[in-house]
């Protein structure tokens, strides 16, 4: 079974984002970029399925600027077999991404799509669900456990009340949550090997997808800043502060 893993190049999760002074967005110039952490978990899960013999072929796909190649090379170094870069310098919205992924899925015919539940830049949490809808397939979102069972997949989901398990008919889309696995680091030999793995270059036009934005960004601003308050010196002082707040 082929597994398709969409990955996104985003600001590194350790970097504190800065809003541009002109309010047009977040400043990404000279900022460390990495693979979206949830996508890394998706790549890892695909590799584990392959190691168990459940997956045969792992295809990583990224939609973004030329530099998203680095993100794809990371996926290849971790263990993906080949990659597709759908190159565009525009910032595409989840709906447009989902349409491109659907076209890729039509071409590649994967048995499973594994992808991050959200990207840590725009925090939309939409693309997987949208892909599943457009592709007419079931979705297992926020997965903390994925088990293939013949022609279906059992997905344990992290939901507000705890954990929920659903069974999905394959092919399906599964989006990963934090506790699905701990992604491996690519070894140096694998990083070297990844350089010669196939990486196909495409554009959104190759898939006939209209990527015009539907949301207009009016402005991006700083959130209200919280001022640090006071430090108290003892538990007694803390107790009296809490009492003053009416909680004790």
């Amino acid at each position, binding site marked *: 079974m082929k597994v398709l893993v969409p990955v996104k190049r985003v600001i590194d*999760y350790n970097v*504190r*984002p800065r*809003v541009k002074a002109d309010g047009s*967005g*977040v400043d990404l110039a000279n900022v460390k970029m990495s693979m979206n952490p949830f996508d890394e978990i998706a790549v890892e899960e695909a590799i584990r399925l392959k190691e168990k013999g459940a997956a045969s072929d792992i295809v990583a796909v990224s939609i973004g600027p030329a530099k998203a190649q680095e993100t794809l090379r990371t996926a290849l170094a971790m263990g993906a077999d080949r990659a597709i870069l759908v190159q565009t310098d525009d910032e595409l*919205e989840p709906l447009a991404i*989902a349409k491109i992924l659907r076209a890729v899925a039509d071409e590649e015919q994967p048995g499973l799509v594994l992808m991050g539940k959200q990207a*840590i830049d*725009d*925090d*939309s*949490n*939409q693309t997987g*669900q*949208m892909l*599943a*809808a457009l592709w007419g*397939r*079931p979705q*297992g*979102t*926020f997965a*903390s456990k994925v088990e293939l069972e013949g022609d279906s997949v059992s997905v344990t*989901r*992290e*939901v*507000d*009340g*705890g*954990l929920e*398990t*659903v*069974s*999905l*008919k394959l092919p*399906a889309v599964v989006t990963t*949550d*934090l*506790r699905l696995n701990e992604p491996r680091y690519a070894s140096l030999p694998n990083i070297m090997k990844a350089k010669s793995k196939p990486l196909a270059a495409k554009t959104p036009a190759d898939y006939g997808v209209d990527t015009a934005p*539907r*949301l207009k*960004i009016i402005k991006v*601003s700083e*959130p209200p800043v*919280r001022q*640090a*308050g*006071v*430090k*108290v010196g003892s*538990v*007694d*002082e*803390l*107790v009296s502060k*809490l009492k003053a*707040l009416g*909680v*004790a």
Partner: protein
Amino acid sequence: MNVLVLIEHEGGKVKDASLATIAAAGQLGSVHTLVAGEGDEARQTAEATARISGVDKVLLASDAAYAHMLAENVADLIVPLMADYDALLCNATSNGKNVAPRVAALLDVMQVSDIIAIEGERTFKRPIYAGNAIATVEASDAKLVITVRGTAFAKAAAEGGSASIEAVSGPGDAALSSFVSCETQASERPELTSAKVIVSGGRALKDAATFEELIVPLADKLGAAVGASRAAVDAGYVPNDYQVGQTGKIVAPEVYIAIGISGAIQHLAGMKDSKTIVAINKDEDAPIFQVADIGLVGDLFQIVPELTSKL
């Protein structure tokens, strides 16, 4: 504008997050609600929804296919209903986040996720980059699909309305997915997302037993909900649904007490709209103190039992 709100419910009761979403919908126009579920539970929920202030009509879809809110079935129910509505509003909860984008894609609409303010009929504010930036966006699609951050809107009153209830039906089971089981912990505590006080613990609590020993009695004393940082959940001290943060629950209680939590930006994203933040940490340079209103530097293993006994 005609707005449809997808109601989230459990045991015949409407979840608090839906009250906030109804209030947000009221800012846009006339509010109809959809209760999807099965049997008595769905009927009771519909009756409770009809009494919510500001609700003009309740659509009730009762079918075994909707008992567990499977996104595939619920989306197929909502899409044809949207012929009569200009906007769909769902909670930005695990449930709403699961269903809404599926509907949006089928309607060819770009969803606006996790809104925190309504600036105009088509203009909304939403946090991006873990709340480190706030984007103001204007939607151009003919219809709107929106998820609403419950803590950002006042809740509609649970009583005072007298809406009519109308039965609707959809295609039923899409036969793509099925519910297997759920593990939820019944708790007497308030829900994290609607609690007035939250006591939250981090990795410094050492292990599950220590977390239970120190955090729970303090929460009991304060009638508080219990939360945790990602590190504490990853380390297995508490279940996943305790997690507060960018990808966990977003909370905004009156008082948030962070114990042994350093304050990674991903955690701050989930709690920095709390009215008062109290931090207890042994590292005086921990980032949590940059947002805390009241800080106490010291050893939590001494401070927390002392605090619990003195309250």
